[in-house]
């Protein structure tokens, strides 16, 4: 936020006289003004000779604050925005889609938690290929070199029969693959860099509706955050929460669905629990738990947290096999 000095040109009421009055209360920027007690400022302004101009200056600052904020929305406007802009994106995984009520919702942060080799990366790659096939752009943050273009080409080719065209004439498979942009990030600062750049690009560019970014995947966000958590300072947790807010803000403003994966750590009594601790639990909108028995083909998904689903639900489906079946059971 701007220091008061820079606001003088645009708002002539905030002149140097008013600025020195504010400086006497140690207010040099809009942020200092927000932290200061308004009533004592007005009371102190009353004691001055030019109290009317000071009060006008204070009112001017308050109206600047008011204009910077979006207006209050009511329930009907929110619902309209949710229905028009926040669409459901099918992931291609019938089990996950069934639990999510149709697919990943734009504007929401979905988390997949599970022990290693439970199908998280598989789910991410399948979602990327499905969304790209249906015409949207996908941004994939790969933290562990698990992104495999061959696998995606195989998944796309499997369901739609696209084949790789020759160099001169790119076939439909090429077009689908072009929509998936993969970034290799190995620490959280790199991810912040890329996200900030993405924010600027999205704000300035006007893209045709079929090339819009619809899905953002971070596989896995826990490997970026776990190294910085721990230690006695709050910086690690602060970075984790800031990353969460940045992702949610991107999701909400540009109608993107965000999918992140998390791993498991040991909890009390020998059970496992999701990594990243208590503070992370309040960041994602939806949390799904994946698990797979060793040596089995059956993958198990259940809901840990969902804003509309009242009880835990389970879904089972077969993966890695020739037959893809689905069995739904409800547990409460």
């Amino acid at each position, binding site marked *: 936020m701007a220091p008061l000095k820079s606001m003088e040109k645009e708002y002539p009421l905030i002149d140097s006289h008013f600025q020195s009055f504010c400086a006497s209360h140690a207010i040099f920027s809009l942020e200092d003004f927000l932290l200061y007690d308004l009533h004592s400022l007005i009371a102190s302004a009353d004691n001055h000779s030019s109290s009317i101009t000071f009060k006008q200056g204070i009112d001017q600052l308050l109206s600047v604050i008011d204009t910077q904020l979006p207006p209050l*929305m*009511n329930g009907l406007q929110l619902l309209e925005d949710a229905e028009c802009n926040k669409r459901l994106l099918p992931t291609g995984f019938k089990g996950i889609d069934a639990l999510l009520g149709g697919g990943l919702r734009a504007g929401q942060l979905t988390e997949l938690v599970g022990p290693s080799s439970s199908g998280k990366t598989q789910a991410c790659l399948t979602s990327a290929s499905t969304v790209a096939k249906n015409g949207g752009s996908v941004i994939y943050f790969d933290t562990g070199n698990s992104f495999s273009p061959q696998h995606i080409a195989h998944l796309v080719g499997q369901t739609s029969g696209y084949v790789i065209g020759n160099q001169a004439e790119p076939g439909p498979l090429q077009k689908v693959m072009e929509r998936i942009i993969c970034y290799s990030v190995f620490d959280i600062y790199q991810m912040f860099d890329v996200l900030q750049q993405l924010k600027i690009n999205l704000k300035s560019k006007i893209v045709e509706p079929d090339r819009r970014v619809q899905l953002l995947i971070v596989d896995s966000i826990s490997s970026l955050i776990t190294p910085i958590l721990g230690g006695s300072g709050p910086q690690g947790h*602060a970075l984790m929460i800031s990353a969460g807010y940045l992702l949610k803000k991107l999701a909400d403003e540009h109608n993107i669905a965000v999918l992140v994966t998390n791993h498991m750590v040991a909890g009390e009594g020998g059970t496992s629990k999701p990594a990243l601790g208590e503070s992370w639990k309040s960041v994602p909108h939806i949390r799904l738990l994946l698990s797979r028995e060793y040596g089995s083909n059956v993958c198990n998904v259940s809901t840990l947290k969902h804003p509309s689903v009242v009880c835990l639900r389970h879904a089972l489906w077969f993966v890695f096999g020739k037959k893809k079946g689905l069995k739904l059971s409800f547990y409460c």
Partner: protein
Amino acid sequence: MNKKEENEKGGVKGWIDGDETAHYMLRRISALRSTLLVPPLHRVPLRLGNVIEIFGPSPSAKTQILIQVAINCVLPKEWNGVRYGGFDHSVLFLDLDCRFDISRFSQMLTHRIMEGNAIGDCDKTLYDLCMQRFLYARCSNSFEFLQTLKSLHYRLKREKDHGVSVQLLLIDSIGAFHWVDRASMFLSLKEHNRKKLFLQSVSEAVVQDIKKLLQVHPMLVIATKSVIFGNTYSTASEEVNGCSRNVTRSPQHIQYREYMPSVWQSFVTHRILLRRSDDQPVINNSENSSLYVLEWLLPRIGLPDKIIVKDNGVFVDS
């Protein structure tokens, strides 16, 4: 001289006699600020100006309870002959977690309207009226939160001019920016030593702003707070006094570390702990539900309530 002495005497006597009796004062105040019974928090009568904090480990049904309270507030007392028993006022929801799902609110409201209606369909005008009374704002950092609070006075005044008055302020997750504020290196351009931490300054500013707001627009404030430190179990078998049933399991007293600054802690007038119940709910044929335990810590009521969350709402299981 005589008149002055008489005036003085009358003044002293008047001062001893007092301005009004306690009975008269109670009558006057209860007419101004009547008590509200807000289900599912109806065990304790509340008044406008109270600040209630609901805390509990995730996932507990904190946001669901806020939505249920909001629905009770926006519904009218009576509509087309059906008694809904609502407070007939607007609600302001400040979403600091940025996780609110309007479709859940819409679902619960539709169910409630359909329940009351004899025909069983949803009255569109009533639905629209209630949805319009639900006001929403979201903040993604402490400065935006302070900006919203400071500008709320003028915004609420504008709404009041349109005939809409807000009686309920809901804040989802008052501790949402705790870590970010603690790690914040925000330094104002002051030359001398900063006596206070940024976290302290922000909390004081927030409490001041809400207090000033409550003076002009009396509202009931309900804030949720999530647990951010892992809990420490301390098993203690509770002596059950005066209860005829045998307690087979000793309830565990789970201690949750308080992390909000003391200025917020002293601002809060009521405190509720909400956590997932160990019992499994009876599985009905078509209904999905989850059970939670709601415990009033301030004022301390020994008996916890069982809260059941279904598709159509949040109820106290009796």
